[in-house]
């Protein structure tokens, strides 16, 4: 077939760019020594496709074509670059490019590519980079999002986002942030930082705040894709599985969290028939695997709680006793007032409302959640269940004074009207 419709070319390339950007870029950063040069090569390869495919037709194996183009462009670069002025060094570098790009790795990650992808993940989420820049760099380099897409997702203008990305790439080069996988002694702490970034990507899309629904949905999808990648890259580590499970379980409920008017629907009132069962089934074995971590970490425990909700056919059948036990474990491992609040609610929902309320009172007395609207909101909810409507109303009013999000505000206002 000669020639191809520009639309087909554009769509094929957009998809390839998203799917392959990280995998093409990762070895190039190692081979060419920095992000900017490596990105230019990837851009060149895709631009070549953009020019040739409309004329010559989309190749039978588009992925292999782009990989070959990237390989050739990288070799061109090396031959022209002063970095490889020494002939022997140049030949070594060229041979290394050939090794990294041929045979074109198929869907399975080869050992070498796996290492490069890990290097890329750990470098994008390096703690010497500001957290918002870690997010931007991760989405841009690993997920192949454009600067405009990332800007839209974080509600900043494209120029600001472009500057943020340029600045971070310059810092990586100038400050000597290494392109490598951390050693065993640092791996746990660094992995935690990576998972935090992934969690923030997902949450940016999931939290019911402002922004375009489609953009937010795609951030959730990218969060899941990144977590899948890290699970694949570090198969022996339980915590990435916990995070992936947590994302899948949260995401399985996304269509039921908000009603047609955009109002919040709490877990208890959601239409469970519309939860994404296939996604829940995928998550459950991951929860099991994550809980085998010694000790299980925060994401695993949160995923286990989400799994118990997902497995209850009706809200009344939720195993609150076990949920309270999971929060107790989490409270022991990484104490936090938010976990204590969740535990108090679970204790109350399991039947011991008085004890749950006492625990909330104790938390409030300590003052550590003084600005957190969910504390009075939780108290209000328990008081409402006890039929203490006047006390509940006072607590809903207190929550309304602290809430920042419109969707949650409307929910609390509705509850206040009802009591």
């Amino acid at each position: 077939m000669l020639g191809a419709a520009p639309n087909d070319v554009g769509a094929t390339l957009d998809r390839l760019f998203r799917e392959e950007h990280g995998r093409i870029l990762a070895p190039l950063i190692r081979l060419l020594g920095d992000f900017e040069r490596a990105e230019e090569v990837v851009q060149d390869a895709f631009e070549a496709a953009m020019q040739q495919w409309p004329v010559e037709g989309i190749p039978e194996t588009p992925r292999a074509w782009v990989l070959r183009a990237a390989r050739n462009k990288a070799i061109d670069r090396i031959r022209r670059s002063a970095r490889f002025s020494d002939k022997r060094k140049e030949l070594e570098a060229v041979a290394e490019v050939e090794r990294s790009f041929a045979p074109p790795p198929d869907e399975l990650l080869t050992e070498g590519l796996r290492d490069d992808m890990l290097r890329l993940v750990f470098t994008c989420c390096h703690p010497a980079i500001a957290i918002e820049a870690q997010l931007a760099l991760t989405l841009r380099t690993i997920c192949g999002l454009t600067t405009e897409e990332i800007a839209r997702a974080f509600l900043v203008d494209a120029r600001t986002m472009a500057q943020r990305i340029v600045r971070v790439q310059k810092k990586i080069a100038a400050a000597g942030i290494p392109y490598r996988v951390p050693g065993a002694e640092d791996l746990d702490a660094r992995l935690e930082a990576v998972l935090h970034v992934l969690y923030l990507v997902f949450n940016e899309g999931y939290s019911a705040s402002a922004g375009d629904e489609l953009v937010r949905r795609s951030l959730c999808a990218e969060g899941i894709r990144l977590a899948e990648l890290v699970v694949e890259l570090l198969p022996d580590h339980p915590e990435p599985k916990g995070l992936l499970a947590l994302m899948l379980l949260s995401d399985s409920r996304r269509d039921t969290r908000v009603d047609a008017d955009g109002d919040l629907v709490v877990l208890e009132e959601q239409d469970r028939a519309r939860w994404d069962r296939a996604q829940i089934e995928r998550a459950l074995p991951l929860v099991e695997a994550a809980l085998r971590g010694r000790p299980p970490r925060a994401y695993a425990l949160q995923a286990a709680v989400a799994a118990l909700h997902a497995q209850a056919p009706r809200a009344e059948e939720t195993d609150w006793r076990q949920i309270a036990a999971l929060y107790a474990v989490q409270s022991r491992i990484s104490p936090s007032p938010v976990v204590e609040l969740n535990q108090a609610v679970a204790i109350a929902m399991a039947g011991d409302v008085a004890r749950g309320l006492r625990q909330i009172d104790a938390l409030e007395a300590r003052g550590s959640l003084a600005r957190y609207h969910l504390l009075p909101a939780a108290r209000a909810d328990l008081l409402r269940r006890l039929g203490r409507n006047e006390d509940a109303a006072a607590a809903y009013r207190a929550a309304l004074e602290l809430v920042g999000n419109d969707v949650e505000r409307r929910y609390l206002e509705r509850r206040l009207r009802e009591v």
Partner: protein
Amino acid sequence: MQYLLMIYENENVMNDMAPEARGAMFAEYNTFTQDIVKSGHFKAGDALQPVATATSVRVKDGKTITTDGPFAETKEQLGGYYLVEAADLDEAIGIAARIPAARTGTIEVRPVMVFDGSM
């Protein structure tokens, strides 16, 4: 006695300089450096990379906390410095975390500028 002379200036002023003015300034620095080398005063001196390359390191409860950016607290004052050779930022952060003041204050890690002759 030895003295550390700390150069504080606004980076933007330098960035906005016309090339000739910048060249003149570099030449002046060169002359000054040569002068104090000749007079026997010079021990060590470097230009630092821009503040955008800075990383701050603290140690809390035995855990190294790394953050992007320079040290910006006014309660504490510059109290000393080490100039170290390290393979990369991770190694430099590791060394910085071993400085006792990392537990009570902050160590700012800034790469030294390397002039490759093209400037």
